[in-house]
């Protein structure tokens, strides 16, 4: 089948039901997208399909044909995406294993809602981080959005 990943077309010979995660990791050798639960619980495998965050561990590769797939490697060439920069600025990652998925979820949230409220963040950011970096993830998202303590309150009111 033919898959379009990070603006490149790849011809892959895989079973139609093989989850997109394993095609990305083991066939296309893009290792930034992680396996952690395999049942859509944790979001470590989050990629974008036509701009929507999708948990690729439970998404058959065949369903992604003809769609635009973006992985962590595809959101910028040099870690220059504002979300990536905010992640470094706020020293978000600890072990870092879940952070590709967290960043993909955050990028998608900010594309839809450039000024997210705390409630928006709670609703969109459902990925698990075992190290417990949630506070810094929230701070980094608000930073990208330009939300400050003052204007966030005003915005939420």
């Amino acid at each position: 089948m033919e898959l379009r990943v990070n603006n490149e077309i790849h011809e892959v010979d895989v079973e139609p039901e093989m989850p997109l995660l394993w095609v990305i990791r083991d066939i296309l050798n893009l290792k930034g997208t992680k396996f952690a639960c395999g049942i859509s619980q944790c979001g470590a495998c989050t990629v974008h399909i036509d701009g929507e965050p999708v948990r690729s561990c439970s998404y058959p590769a065949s369903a992604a044909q003809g769609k635009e797939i973006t992985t962590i490697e595809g959101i910028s060439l040099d870690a220059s995406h504002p979300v990536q920069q905010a992640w470094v600025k706020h020293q978000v990652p600890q072990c870092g294993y879940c952070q590709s998925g967290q960043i993909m979820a955050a990028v998608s949230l900010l594309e839809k809602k450039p000024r997210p409220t705390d409630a928006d963040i709670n609703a969109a950011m459902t990925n698990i981080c075992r190290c417990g970096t949630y506070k810094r993830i929230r701070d980094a998202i608000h930073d990208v959005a330009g939300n400050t303590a003052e204007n966030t309150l005003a915005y939420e009111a």
Partner: protein
Amino acid sequence: MNKQFNSSRRKFMLTSAAISGGFALGLQLPVKAQDAVTGNDINIWVQINPDDTVTIKYARCEMGQGSMTSAPQIVADELDASWDQVHIEYVDVNEHFRMDRAWGAMVTVGSQTIRNSQEYLRNAGASARAMLVAAAASEWGVPASEINVSNGVISHAISGRESGFGALAAAAAEQAVPETVTLKDPADWHIIGQSKPRVDIPPSVDGSQVYGVDVELPGMVYASMATSPVFGGSVISFDATKALTRKGIIDVVAIDGIAVAVVADNWWRANKALAEVEIQWDTKGNGEVSNETILAQFNDSLAASDAAPMPNNTGDADQALANAEQVLEADYFTPFLSHSPMEPMGATVRITGERVDIWASTQSPEGLVGEMVNALGVEEENVYAHRVQAGGGFGRRGGSSDYARAAALIAAELPDGTPVKMLWTREEDTQHDFYRPLAMYRLKGGLDANGMISGWKARIASGSILNQMRGVPLRGGVDFTAVEGFTELPYNIPDQFQDFKLTPTHVPLGFWRTVGWSQTPFAREQFIDELAIAAGEDPYHFRLKHMAEDELSRHILVKVAEAIGWDETPAAGIYRGIATTEPYGSYTAAAVELSVNDAGVINIHRIIQGINTGHMVNPDNVIAQLEGATVWAISAAMWGEINIDQGKVQESNFHDYRLLRMAQMPVIDTVLEATGGFWGGVGEPGQAPILPAFCNAIAAATGTRVRSLPLKHHGFSLA
């Protein structure tokens, strides 16, 4: 000259080894270590390059705890380097073994990296600095005492001469290694104490960080495995006929008689096929073990007459309790818990002749090497353990390297030179952990007429991690990690008696972040509240009354109480809890403010988390560790439990082993104290006071004293 230089250098290496030797049992003097001091190396920790950059070696592991940044900060400070010129490089594990473990301990456990390395790291930096100064003195013909080093610049004010490190590096390497060096006064530190950004963060934001499971090699094959679902069970037989017909399947093998692995050209294919292997298991008599049988065993332990007394017992606790005005007694229960790091267990092994290469996320390079030696009978010096970032460790990757052993045994079944990446599913990971021990505590306390604790008894019933995992004998019948938190109470109680009853089950036990301190404070610090309430006193002031003025636990407790405004009445409907602990060389206290509605929904308004680490290397990283430890503790408090039925773990994945997510993240404010005089741990201590402070607040809010975890079984949920 050369001869003298050599002998001096050898002496330095011996000294360095003597310092680090305390942490690596059986360490031989690294006479071969001088071999490593070549090229641009000044010593085994510091390399100065011609372009003025400084390479600092890091020997331990990185799994998000931050010491890959903070340990080199210590070296750079004594070196008087500029942090901007510093690059950090892992010590090569194979080189370390070939040099008789010259770099001391690589194992990264027990919040030890800074507190147990700081002395030799400071010496390494100071010694390299002294050699640069000696080189400058010699080159410029001026006394060394007139030379200053600051931010990577060596200067002589009187003559106006100045140089970077690079130009003097070759001459410095020829200098005699100083016999002794004077370490800086902490007031002069300029890199220690600074929140330097963590060096391993940039690759974590663009997908380029390489974890154990990310290693990809030419000709690699992949394996998924199933271990006996009943602990201690074995494989009677298996039928792989159907599995072998599937696409891409290469082999199906038994491992150690306790597991079956499918090898394929792709991990997903291997894992799908594994489900079609029919395996007959022998439960080895453990098929009837359940929560109920384990609980009965622990209740027997609480009543047993043959427990082992702890060495710190003083006075006559029974007499004190007999004389008390009031006596309280309570039993506390903490369950088994799994580590569940985000990266499941896995390892890549390639055997080529006598040589073994392994790539695995670990907290113990020594453990990986030792496991390869045990599993494959190869020589230590022929094992090449490659460095990767660990996707969380939390103790799972520090005690046992069982997953690396499995990968090695699979590799041994494959043609020479074939790399195999073995990876567990989340279910396999959850059900084949080395669990935080289940433990029960029976506490008795007496109050005298003045409302002071006059007598104290504690019975601790738990398995022993080291005894079960490695056959390490108990000291005087007491397991020292199970009783952490009871060995030295911060409270003045003249008559106290505590004992330990070993209670082994078939459930494998391991070091789970904060180990004994993850659970003993739940009992100890809640029982102190119970006594305070019985005495009609405020729990915070009741604690202070029992603490010496110079008690370090008191210092951080006071700071945390002040931060939450303990002596001011909270708003209506808001309640507080507080607790103090002394884990891993640091002092931590926490205060929690919450409200609970009629449906048992807990709303955490804020948590104050305080730590005194003595000296503090990287404050922002300390804050990050406190935040993370709080999340860890709240997950355990609300939902954490591993249940056993028919000898097996019932939980399997994140849907039934629930962890806190963003929407329930409480507000955390941290109080950092660095009173000096000692070096405390950072990665684990933050968790210790959270559970009891949280549960003390729940008791204050509801009148319900929760003595067994998790809270979900007591009708509580989290807003």
